[in-house]
């Protein structure tokens, strides 16, 4: 299926598009809502064209980073750009696009005065068509020549990556080659070294291996075409007519694949799957049908379908997606299958937040976000009941609510096709996340059991393990830098490349802080970037922290570390700045609380503060600091 089938249809969509208001921020918000509808390619183009007329330079402020995406290729790509921009809109990301002059991608990359260089991309998509990539390949080739051709094309692609990286230092995504070629030998096509079809298969394997080594990401249109059928993706008549390798009808899906990559790059993939229970996780109503009456597991096709959905949810959980439950039920009834039903794949321990009561689901989802300490915009809510879906969409538009039928076989497909949880790599933290959240609950239980805060903190046996930035931590560092909004003093967003630059800078330090305690490993919870200025002031460029560890004395302990590292660079003073945003009001007086002297405040509510290192005494806390 190449439609955006997980998105709902909006009945008065056309009227709402034509009635977009002129106020920039309202127009943007309305357009984001319209982008979250099930659109075909014509409506996608219409939306893109309209929003670009109303907002030629985009919204004034967004929580996301604006993107300048260069799309480089060897055939016609213009028809794919609206889908990409609309997919950005769907995620609240403004995307400007650039497409090279027809066939000129190498020249434009190489020439510093080309329009591509003038565009200054912040992300690059390389979309070479399969005809271009197999030029010169023919079934007449012997194995040796085919092998040489494969090496040559790999080298050429690598050269394109090198040129792009050297010129722009920005993330690169390479479109896999589409399997457009017809077989000439048949089932055993792989025995023909010069087969174009087999060449594409081998090239796609080789590109993936190469991309791993070079830090390039892959746009897996080959996998998608394998699922949807190449006939949906590629129409040879259109290729002959207009050199469009990807059919315009697939434009919205193609764009969405790119959009979810860009969102993931900004750390904005969804994090948590919230499950309804009755008729979503099992068939039937547990309160009415009882443990024996619900459809689940072997013995009925319907029961097996629910089991398969649970297995998919568990697979997601094992790679770092948090699971939660939001059900209208008496809690005892709702928990019973998790504890007693032999065919339940999901166990109570897989669920980080379990809410079962009779209140409305929007309120309960808010409570789940609060309990897990994550933003509502990182939640996906799946429910078989259209009433509940619409209620949540209306009350909480930032929560993703896939459109599903009452057939559970479609639930995993909806989640997978929507790409909510698009990941670029899997960190150890991702794999341990559910147990981290379980640990939080044990911590809360301890907090309730002890009456005074100091003894609670002492009882936690906390260890702060700190390290300079390193390649291993890179993914998580960039994720935190781009996702943290609340405890974030300056809200500066950085890419992989920016973070690598900090590592290489002798007059700067980047610190990653991990917090352990008797209930487990909280993972990386804080990021610091310090930069030494010429006047020997150490400027705290970035200080952000996960709100999960608020109130645990992490802040003063972190300052001790900053002071120590600043002194190593020869700094005399530490300068801390607060730059206000809509979301970071909680840290307005952060530096004053830590004993800094306020030097200036500005009209926007920001402030700059100074700490004299000669007069600084490290704070005593219950946290044991270890260099890791």
């Amino acid at each position, binding site marked *: 299926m190449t439609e955006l089938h997980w998105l709902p249809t909006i009945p008065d969509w*056309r009227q709402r598009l*034509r009635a977009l208001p002129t106020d920039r921020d309202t127009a943007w918000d309305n357009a984001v809502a319209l982008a979250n509808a099930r659109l*075909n*390619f*014509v*409506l996608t*183009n*219409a939306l893109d*064209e*309209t929003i670009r007329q109303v907002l030629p330079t985009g919204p004034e402020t967004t929580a996301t980073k604006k993107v300048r995406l260069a799309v480089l290729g060897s055939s016609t790509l*213009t*028809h794919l750009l609206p889908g990409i921009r609309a997919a950005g809109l769907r995620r609240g990301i403004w995307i400007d696009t650039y497409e090279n002059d027809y066939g000129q991608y190498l020249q434009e990359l190489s020439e510093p005065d080309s329009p591509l260089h003038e565009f200054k991309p912040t992300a690059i998509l390389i979309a070479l068509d399969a005809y271009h990539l197999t030029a010169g390949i023919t079934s007449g080739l012997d194995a040796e020549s085919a092998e040489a051709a494969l090496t040559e094309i790999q080298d050429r692609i690598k050269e394109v990556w090198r040129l792009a990286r050297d010129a722009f230092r920005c993330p690169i995504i390479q479109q896999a080659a589409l399997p457009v070629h017809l077989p000439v030998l048949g089932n055993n096509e792989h025995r023909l070294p010069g087969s174009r079809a087999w060449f594409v298969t081998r090239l796609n394997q080789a590109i993936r291996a190469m991309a791993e080594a070079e830090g390039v990401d892959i746009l897996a249109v080959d996998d998608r075409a394998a699922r949807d059928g190449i006939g949906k993706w590629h129409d040879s*008549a*259109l290729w*002959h*007519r*207009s050199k*469009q390798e990807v*059919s*315009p*009808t697939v434009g919205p899906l193609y764009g969405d694949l790119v959009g979810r990559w860009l969102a993931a790059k900004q750390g904005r993939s969804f994090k948590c799957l919230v499950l309804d229970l009755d008729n979503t996780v099992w068939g039937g109503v547990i309160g009415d049908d009882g443990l024996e009456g619900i459809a689940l597991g072997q013995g009925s096709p319907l029961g097996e379908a629910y089991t398969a959905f649970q297995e998919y949810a568990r697979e997601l959980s094992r790679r770092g997606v948090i699971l939660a439950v939001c059900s209208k039920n008496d809690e005892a009834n709702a928990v019973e299958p998790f504890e007693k039903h032999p065919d339940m794949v999901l166990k109570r321990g897989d669920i980080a937040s379990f809410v079962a009561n009779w209140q409305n689901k929007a309120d309960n989802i808010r409570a789940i976000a609060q309990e897990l300490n994550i933003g509502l915009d990182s939640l996906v809510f799946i429910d078989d009941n259209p009433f509940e879906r619409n209620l949540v969409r209306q009350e909480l538009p930032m929560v993703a609510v896939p459109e599903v039928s009452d057939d559970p076989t479609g639930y995993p497909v909806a989640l997978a096709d929507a790409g909510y949880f698009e990941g670029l790599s899997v960190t150890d933290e991702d794999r341990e996340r559910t147990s981290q959240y379980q640990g939080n609950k044990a911590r809360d239980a301890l907090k309730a059991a002890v009456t005074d805060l100091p003894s609670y903190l002492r009882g936690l046996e906390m260890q702060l393990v700190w390290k300079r930035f390193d390649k291993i931590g890179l993914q998580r560092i960039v994720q935190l830098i781009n996702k943290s909004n609340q405890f974030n003093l300056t809200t500066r967003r950085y890419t992989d490349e920016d973070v690598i630059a900090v590592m290489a800078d002798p007059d700067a330090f980047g610190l990653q802080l991990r917090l352990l305690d008797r209930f487990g490993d909280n993972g990386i919870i804080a990021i610091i970037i310090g930069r030494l200025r010429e006047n020997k002031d150490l400027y705290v460029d970035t200080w952000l922290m996960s709100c999960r560890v608020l109130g645990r004395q992490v802040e003063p302990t972190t300052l001790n570390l900053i002071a120590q590292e600043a002194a190593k660079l020869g700094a005399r003073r530490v300068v801390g700045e607060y730059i206000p945003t809509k979301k970071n009001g909680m840290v307005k007086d952060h530096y004053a609380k830590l004993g800094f002297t306020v030097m200036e405040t500005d009209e926007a509510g920001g402030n700059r503060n100074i700490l004299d290192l000669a007069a600084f005494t490290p704070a005593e806390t219950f946290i044991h600091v270890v260099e890791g």
Partner: protein
Amino acid sequence: MATEAEIYGALTEIFHDVFMRDDIVLSAELTAKQVQGWDSFKQIEIIMACEEKWGIKFNTRELDALRCVGDLATMVGKKAG
């Protein structure tokens, strides 16, 4: 079986969506030259929107033979009928 009026009704909606304008009035004689922005890309959009709408497929010869909206409506009528 779609009537001519039904086909023109649906075509009008497609044209309004493709060109983002509600003032285009279709007639059998209307050609690409008379509609601002109707280039070869828009032509492909219109054709594919028709294919999607009626679940039909045009071949290369048929597409090359299209001269005006009337040709398109006739061909839709033949294929969707």
